[in-house]
């Protein structure tokens, strides 16, 4: 019964989120384009599916994953777990003591990104547009690895208290350098992949981890140091997708070189 109420409330709030978008779309369609929408029935059913889908998705996340994710973030950042029970907490922590946090950050960053619906949307579109040259799984795994490294590094930054902008600026330098050596086709998609990774699934879990760390690591301020993980999670996928394209291009070139060599042998 409580579940039903929860479903209903989430349905209403999702509807409220979708409504302005629907109004903009249908408003422009009616008053500016002034043409009937092709397959109107399907489009409306599609919108209903999206709202129902998001509703179940959000309620399921809140029931199952978020409490567990928050619980884990709490357990992992608990000084009892890191320094052992009854051990005193040092004033200056050794960053290496937090190794489980980095591993968890990597694992949770990777796995939540694989389940991220907006990344799926972009991956499907990229596959269709590229005629299958960019596989859905190739892109998703590349992005997920980027998020994993980004969040892992982000937790390291919170533990050490280093300034975030040094990391971000170094990241930018990498992106710019990679841009000049990457296949032209992939560049816009790679830039996009930074923005799509962090939505429904990743943000709440990652925020809990960041806040938990900033609260328990001595000398950190949750208000100042709790932020920044999302920025890391949006920057690193750009690098990993560019790297993915560079590696696949290199492999394809090598393959064709080997083929050419064997052809000229004959």
């Amino acid at each position, binding site marked *: 019964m409580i579940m039903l109420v929860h479903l209903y409330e989430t349905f209403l709030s999702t509807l409220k989120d979708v409504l302005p978008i629907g109004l903009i779309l249908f408003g422009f369609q009616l008053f500016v*384009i002034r043409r009937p929408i092709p397959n109107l029935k399907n489009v409306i059913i599609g919108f209903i599916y999206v709202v129902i889908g998001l*509703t179940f998705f959000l309620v*399921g996340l809140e029931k199952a994953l978020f*409490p567990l994710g928050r619980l*884990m973030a709490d357990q992992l950042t608990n000084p009892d777990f890191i320094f052992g029970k009854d051990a005193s907490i040092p004033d200056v922590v050794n960053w290496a003591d937090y190794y489980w946090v980095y591993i968890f950050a990597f694992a949770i960053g990777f796995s939540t990104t694989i389940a991220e619906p907006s990344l799926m949307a*972009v991956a499907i579109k990229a596959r269709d547009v590229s005629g299958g040259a960019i596989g859905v799984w190739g892109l998703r795994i590349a992005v997920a690895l980027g998020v994993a490294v980004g969040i892992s590094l982000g937790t390291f930054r919170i533990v050490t208290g280093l300034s975030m902008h040094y990391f971000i600026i170094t990241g930018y330098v990498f992106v710019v350098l990679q841009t000049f050596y990457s296949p032209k086709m992939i560049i*816009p998609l790679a830039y*996009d992949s930074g923005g799509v990774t962090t939505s429904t699934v990743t943000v709440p879990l990652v925020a809990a981890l960041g806040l938990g760390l900033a609260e328990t690591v001595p000398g950190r301020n949750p208000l100042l140091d709790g932020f920044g993980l999302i920025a890391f999670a949006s920057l690193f996928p750009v690098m990993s997708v560019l790297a993915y394209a560079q590696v696949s291009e290199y492999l394809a070139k090598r393959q064709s070189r080997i083929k050419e060599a064997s052809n000229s042998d004959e």
Partner: protein
Amino acid sequence: MWESVIKAFLSLLKSMAGSLRDLAPIIVVVVFFQIIIFGQPLPNLGELLIGLLFVTLGLTFFIYGLEMGLFPIGESMAHAFARKGSVAWLIVFAFSLGFGTTIAEPALIAVAAEAASVAANAAVIEKTAEAQLSYATGLRYTVALSVGIAIVLGVIRILKGWPIHLMIIAGYLLVVTMTVFAPKEIIGIAYDSGGVTTSTITVPLVTALGVGLASSIKGRNPMIDGFGLIAFASLLPMIFVMAYGMVI
């Protein structure tokens, strides 16, 4: 008749299996850490399983709806605007889509409220509920404005065929320069605001719009010119939020 029902049911089951596979990594990570690392049982196993079923069902419906509704309407509108040839209306549409979808974004509302309490603690603004609310509202409008402008900029880029990397690199330079001058408290929030603006419904719509535009304009390649709108929508908020922090 029964045959088609069974067929539909089987295809639903198949998509659900696909969604379950997408969720498998999370399950593995959570179970591994809870049982192996912490040596504790999974709490509320029943609720956990129901939640998992819901997530799987939700993901399946979402993907169905995406391909039935969001993608087609995004593309058909892009084609219609390209045929109509009215750049002015296209720009108004792009701005409304960016602004309208961002202003109501729940993640942004949460981040803005948090940012206001950071600012109050740092004594940038007064520590009253009223001052914090007005700061948070201002921040939300700033971000929504920046996303609206970002989509407009991205659409103009598609129309003109400008190379994206030069624009993004220029944006990076601006971000880095502003980081030096912006107040320290706002930087973390500004950097994060780029990531929270693009929601699950906005991303497919905006992507379909870009790809649809690029494929209906002669001389544009949907792969090179169609993508990139999201990139602007995650870069511009950083610049605008830092500017907001500098002005206030």
